[in-house]
C-alpha cells in the first residue's frame, strides 16, 4: 500500500471514530471531548502567534472571553437568534477587539507584547467583574437559550442534547483548526515564520511586516473567539473567572509547552494530555496542585520541547543508531 493510501485510510478511520464517539463512550466522555476540542482550538490559536510568528501573549483569554461574552450577550438579548449567527457575533466581538488592539500590538514584540497583553487582559477581567449590569459580574451570564441548529423548512436539531452539540462543536472546531493549519501551509504561512525568525529580511524581501503581523493577530483573535463562543454555548455560561482570568490566559501557554511549541499539532496533543491528566486527578486525588505542578516541572526539566519535541528527538536518535551512515537526514 502506498503512503498516500495509508493516510487516506487513517483519515477515514479517524472520521468514523469521531462520528461514532458519542454512542461509543456515552454522554460524559462526549462532553469531555468537547472540552478538549475547545481548548485545543484555543491553544492552536495561541500557538499561531507564539510558534509561527514568535509573539508570546499573556492575555489571550481576552479574545476567548470576548467570543464567549459576545455570544452570551447576543443570545440573552436578541430573541430568536439562530445558532450560527450567535456564533458569528461572538467571533465578531473577538475580531473587533483584535482590530482595536492590532495597531498598537503589531509595532511591538517580545516582552512588551507579552506584558501589554497581560495588562489589557487584566483590564478586561476587572471590567467584566465591575460592569455587573452588563456582564453579570462574578456570576457571569448564564441560562441563555441555546438555539437549535436549523435550516429553515428542512431540519432543526436540538442543541441541548449532548450528542448533537458534540457534532456541532466538532464540526466548528475541526473546521477552524483545519483552516488555521491550511494557512500555515500557504505562502503566507512561510512569511509568518519569516517574521518570527528574521523580520528585517522579510521586510527587505518586500513583505510588510506589520501587515503580516496584523493578519496573524486577527486570525488568532478570531479563532480564539470561536473557541470562546463554543465554550459559552457548551457551558451555557460565561463568567469572568471561567473565561477571562489570568489562568485562562496561562492555560494555552501550558498546553503548548507540554505538547510542543514548534509544531502545529503540539498544542492539540498538549490539550489531550492535559485532559487525560485532569480527568485522572479529579478522580483519584485532592492534591491537584501537586500533580499539575510536578508535571510542569518534569516536562520543562526533561522534555523542554514538549512531547512532540521529545518524540522527534527520540526518532532522530533511533535513526542515527539503526540507519546506515548518511541516511539520518529527514525523509523528504
Amino acid at each position, binding site marked *: 500500500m502506498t503512503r498516500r493510501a495509508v493516510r487516506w485510510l487513517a483519515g477515514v478511520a479517524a472520521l468514523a471514530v469521531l462520528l461514532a464517539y458519542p454512542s461509543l463512550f456515552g454522554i460524559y466522555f462526549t*462532553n469531555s471531548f468537547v472540552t478538549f476540542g475547545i481548548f485545543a482550538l484555543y491553544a492552536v490559536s495561541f500557538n499561531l502567534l507564539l510558534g509561527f510568528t514568535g509573539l508570546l501573549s499573556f492575555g489571550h483569554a481576552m479574545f476567548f472571553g470576548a467570543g464567549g461574552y459576545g455570544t452570551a450577550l447576543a443570545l440573552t438579548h436578541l430573541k430568536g437568534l439562530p445558532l450560527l449567527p450567535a456564533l458569528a457575533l461572538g467571533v465578531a466581538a473577538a475580531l473587533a477587539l483584535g482590530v482595536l488592539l492590532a495597531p498598537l500590538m503589531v509595532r511591538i514584540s517580545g516582552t512588551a507584547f507579552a506584558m501589554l497583553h497581560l495588562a489589557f487582559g487584566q483590564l478586561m477581567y476587572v471590567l467584566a467583574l465591575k460592569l455587573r449590569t452588563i456582564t*453579570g459580574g462574578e456570576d457571569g451570564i448564564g441560562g441563555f437559550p441555546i438555539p437549535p441548529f436549523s435550516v429553515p423548512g428542512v431540519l432543526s436539531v436540538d442543541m441541548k442534547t449532548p450528542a448533537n452539540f458534540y457534532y456541532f462543536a466538532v464540526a466548528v472546531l475541526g473546521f477552524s483548526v483545519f483552516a488555521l493549519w491550511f494557512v500555515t501551509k500557504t505562502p503566507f504561512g512561510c512569511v509568518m515564520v519569516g517574521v518570527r525568525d528574521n523580520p528585517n529580511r522579510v521586510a527587505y524581501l518586500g513583505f510588510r511586516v506589520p501587515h503580516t503581523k496584523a493578519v496573524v493577530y486577527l486570525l488568532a483573535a478570531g479563532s480564539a473567539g470561536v473557541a470562546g463562543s463554543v465554550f459559552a454555548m457548551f457551558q451555557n*455560561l460565561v463568567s469572568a473567572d471561567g473565561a477571562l482570568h489570568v489562568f485562562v490566559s496561562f492555560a494555552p501557554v501550558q498546553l503548548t509547552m507540554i505538547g510542543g511549541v514548534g509544531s502545529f499539532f503540539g498544542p492539540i496533543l498538549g490539550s489531550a494530555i492535559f485532559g487525560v491528566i485532569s480527568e485522572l486527578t479529579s478522580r483519584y486525588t485532592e492534591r*491537584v496542585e501537586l500533580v499539575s505542578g510536578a508535571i510542569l516541572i518534569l516536562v520543562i526539566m526533561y522534555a523542554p520541547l514538549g512531547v512532540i519535541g521529545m518524540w522527534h528527538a527520540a526518532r532522530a536518535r533511533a535513526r542515527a543508531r539503526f540507519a546506515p551512515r548518511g541516511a539520518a537526514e529527514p525523509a523528504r
Partner: protein
Amino acid sequence: MNLPRQALTLVVLASLLLFGVADAQAAQAKAAFDPDKMADMSDFDPNKPVIPTGDTIKIAVVASFSGPAAVVGQIYFISVQWAAHDINKRGGIMVDGKRKLVEVIKANHASQPAETKKVAERMVLQEKVNVLWGTDGSHLMKIINQVADKYKVIAQSASALSDELYDTTNFSRYSFMSSFSTEQIGRAIGFYYGKIRKKEKKFYILGQDYLFGHSLADGFKKGLKEYYPEATLLGEDYHPLFMKDFAPYLQKIKASGAEVIFTGDWIPDAENLLVQARQMGIKLPFANLFLDEPNMLHRVGVDGTTGLVHVSQYGAEGGAFKTPGQIKAYKAWNTLWKTKWGPPYNTRLYEHGTGNIGSYIQQTYWLLSVIERAGSTDPEKIIKVWENDSYQLLNGKVLTMRSCDHKAIQDLHVEEYVPPAKQRESFNIPPYFWYEGTSSVGPSVAIPARYVLPKMDKSLARCKDKSEAGE
C-alpha cells in the same frame, strides 16, 4: 450584670411576648430529628470514613477540595458524612423495597465554573448519584442546579445563599434550598436593630462586590426600610473579592460617623476586615454573617470581638442546650473532637459541631428523612415529599420547604457576641463558655419566620398566586 444588659434582656422578653414564641411551630413539623435514635458514633473518624459501596443511596458533596479554599470541602464533608454515618449505623434507609446505606462521595469543583459542570455531570452520569449537595459559591450552585435539572436528579443547596438561584430564570424543581438566603439575612439584621435592639441608628454597608454581596446589602436596606425607618444609611461601599488593604475603606467609614458596619464578607475578606479595623482602633460593631470563625475571632481576642452581631441559621433563643438529647448529641461530637480526630479536623474550627457545621449536619438529616419518607430514591417521589415538608432540627428549630419555589421558611437568630464570662447565657452547660479566648454567642434572639420570609420571585409561574408564607 450591668444595666444595659438587663434592659436588653427586658426588650428581648417583651419582644418574645409580642411576636410569640418560636417553638409554637415545632408541634406542626411533619418529622423531627430524634437524638435518642442516634447511633453510637464513637467510631466516627472523618480521616478514616466508613463509606459503604455497592447498591447505596449516593450523595455527592460538590465543593472545593483543592486549591486555597480546600477547607470548605473539609467542613462540608465531615458534616454530611456525620449524618450518613449515623444513619448507616442505624441500618440505613428503606427505599424501593430494600434497605440501603448512604454513600457520600467527594466531588471536587476546585472553585472553577467549568470544573463544576464537569464533576457534577460525572457524579450523575458515571457515579449515578441520587443527590448533588452543594456548595461554596452561588455561581457554582447555579451550575449544579442546571445539571440536576438536565439529568433529573435532586440537588440540595445547603450553603450557597443567593436568592437568585430560585428566581424565574434559575428555578429548577429538582433543586431545594434548605439554607437561609441573602435577602432574609439582611432583613433579619434590619429587624433586629429596628424592633429588638433599638439603639444604634447610623449604619454603613461594606460588602463584597459581586451578586452575593449586593443581594445581602439590598436585603439589609429593605429590612431597615420595613422595620427601622428612623435609621440612616451613611454610605455603602463594595470592595473586590480577596481585598488586601481595607484601611482606606475603614478610614472612610470611621469619618462617616457610622455606629454599625453591615458586612456579608467571608474569609479571607472577613478576617482582614475585622483584624485591620481593630488594629486601626476602630471598635465599631460589625453586623455580620461570617464573622463567626473561631481562628479569626481569637486573632483579635475578647476585646476585639465583643459586640459583634451575628445572624445565624442554626441559633437558638436563649440557652443553646434545652434537652438532654441535644446535650448528648453535642457531647458525642465534642468528645470525638477532643480525643480522636487528627488533622485537619482537630482544630478549633471543628470543636463544637454547632453553628454552620451543625446546620449542614441537620440539613443533611432533613434530606435523609425526606428520602426515608418518600420510601424511594425516585426524584419525583422525593420532590412530592419535600415540597411543603417541615422538619424539626436537633436544636428545636423548624424548617418548612415552601413548595412553589423550594426555599426554606425558618426563624433566624441574631446573636450578640460577649466575653467568655457572659457566654453562659448561650452555652448553658459546663464549662459555660464557647471559647475562653474570644467573645462569642451570648444573648440570642429569634427573628420569627413571618418577618423574614425568604424572597419570592412572583414572576415564577409556580408562585403566581401564592403568598410569601407559601399558602
